[in-house]
């Protein structure tokens, strides 16, 4: 068993550094931006044509929360080439696996995180908006300077949940031909027929990455909570 581990670990680490980590980080950052935009649009009380925009974003969240990530990857990678748009993409939209993966993961994370961010913004008392408006801030100033810094505290653990979940969901990238860490472990298991050993090994590597994230979460929680004291 030890020789399996010694032999497999470097391959797994390389795949992790090459795909798992970069895909997770890039997708999460893009997803977070998308989530913020989505949450703000959905929370806005603007009327008129803006309501169409709200409906679009509501549809987006619904679509990406309601369908399996694997299917989303499949459709973006294998399905879009069939979508032949006369002027924009006459030969269909053919993305490289990496691009298709990052787009899909970002859209998926964005949909989930937008719900978290929306809830955290709603949890900030009305008085904070009013105080910000009263000193003449615009809505976006109030948001970025007053509301979001407070909302971060509430949304950190669920956002960390999403990030940590994403790290492991990148294993689905194998279905669109990306040989990421989990796929490498499967390929090795296919040879040695020891999937249980390989899975424990790859789980340990995921655990290392996710522990770093948990630690980061704890640190950020401390930083963003420095102004609060809670009763026991």
């Amino acid at each position: 068993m030890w020789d399996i581990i010694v032999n497999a670990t470097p391959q797994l680490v390389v795949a992790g550094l090459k795909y798992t980590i970069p895909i997770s980080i890039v997708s999460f950052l893009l997803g977070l931006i998308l989530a913020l935009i989505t949450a703000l649009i959905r929370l806005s009380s603007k009327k008129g044509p803006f309501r169409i925009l709200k409906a679009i974003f509501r549809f987006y969240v619904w679509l990406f929360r309601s369908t399996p990530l694997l299917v989303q990857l499949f459709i973006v990678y294998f399905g879009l080439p069939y979508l032949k748009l006369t002027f924009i993409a006459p030969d269909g939209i053919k993305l490289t696996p990496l691009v298709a993966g990052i787009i899909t993961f970002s859209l998926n994370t964005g949909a989930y995180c937008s719900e978290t961010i929306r809830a955290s913004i709603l949890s900030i008392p009305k008085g904070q908006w009013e105080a910000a408006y009263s000193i003449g801030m615009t809505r976006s100033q109030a948001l970025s300077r007053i509301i979001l810094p407070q909302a971060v505290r509430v949304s950190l653990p669920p956002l960390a949940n999403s990030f940590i979940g994403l790290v492991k969901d990148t294993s689905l990238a194998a279905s669109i031909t990306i040989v990421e860490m989990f796929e490498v472990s499967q390929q090795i298991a296919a040879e040695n027929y020891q999937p249980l050993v390989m899975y424990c090994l790859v789980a340990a590597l995921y655990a290392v990455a996710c522990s770093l994230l948990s630690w980061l979460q704890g640190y950020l929680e401390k930083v963003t909570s420095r102004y609060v004291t809670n009763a026991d």
Partner: protein
Amino acid sequence: SSSGKSTSNDSYKSELNQKGTLTIGLEGTYSPYSYRKDGKLTGFEVELGNKLAKKMGLKAKFVPTKWDGLVAGLGSNKYDVVLNNITATPARAKNYIFSKPYIYSRYALITRQGDSIKKLNDIKGKKLAEGTGTNNELVAKQNGATIVPSGDFATSLSLVRQKRVDATINAREAWYSYKKSNSTDGLTYHDLSSEKDPAKIVGLFNKKSTKLRSETNKALKALRADGTLKKLSNKYFGANITE
């Protein structure tokens, strides 16, 4: 009336996972070996399993699962045997034991029409779409191809069609099965049987199930002798590939 009753020694039954039942692991997602039709599990390996069990005086129970679960499940005694288009390899022999072959599977190389790749030699350095854990993957790898993981045969063909890989190696039978109900426009098929010996497809057992294995071999021999195996092969593959 089953031949299982007539064998002098029933001790293999103590190796069974479940009394009176032969628990068979397979994927259920690979036509024509095992797949779902009209809500029922069917395919060559499913019928073979039924016949084997009957010969051994047992009831067959099929447990479809992913390939990784098949291997792990055999280790922790979740099934008695795995019938899933498995080839015997030395690496696998370290942890498991095999039955006698029941299929000699010919390989086929599928490429885009007009492509220069025609032989096994040509695939060196090329991208080939193969299912993880399959014999095809093994062959492609041995011949220096870069493996692009792919879930199933149809997806592999999509990858070839969309020029995302150069070719795929698969069992000849899979290609025929696909061709029956789907268009193969734009694709060509090259028989590799002259270059590559057919793969010996075997049943996979836990190392401890030696008696069960010999009993299964006996049953397999009987099925071969009475022509059942050939009949099944003709039904699913359109040819006899069991010899």
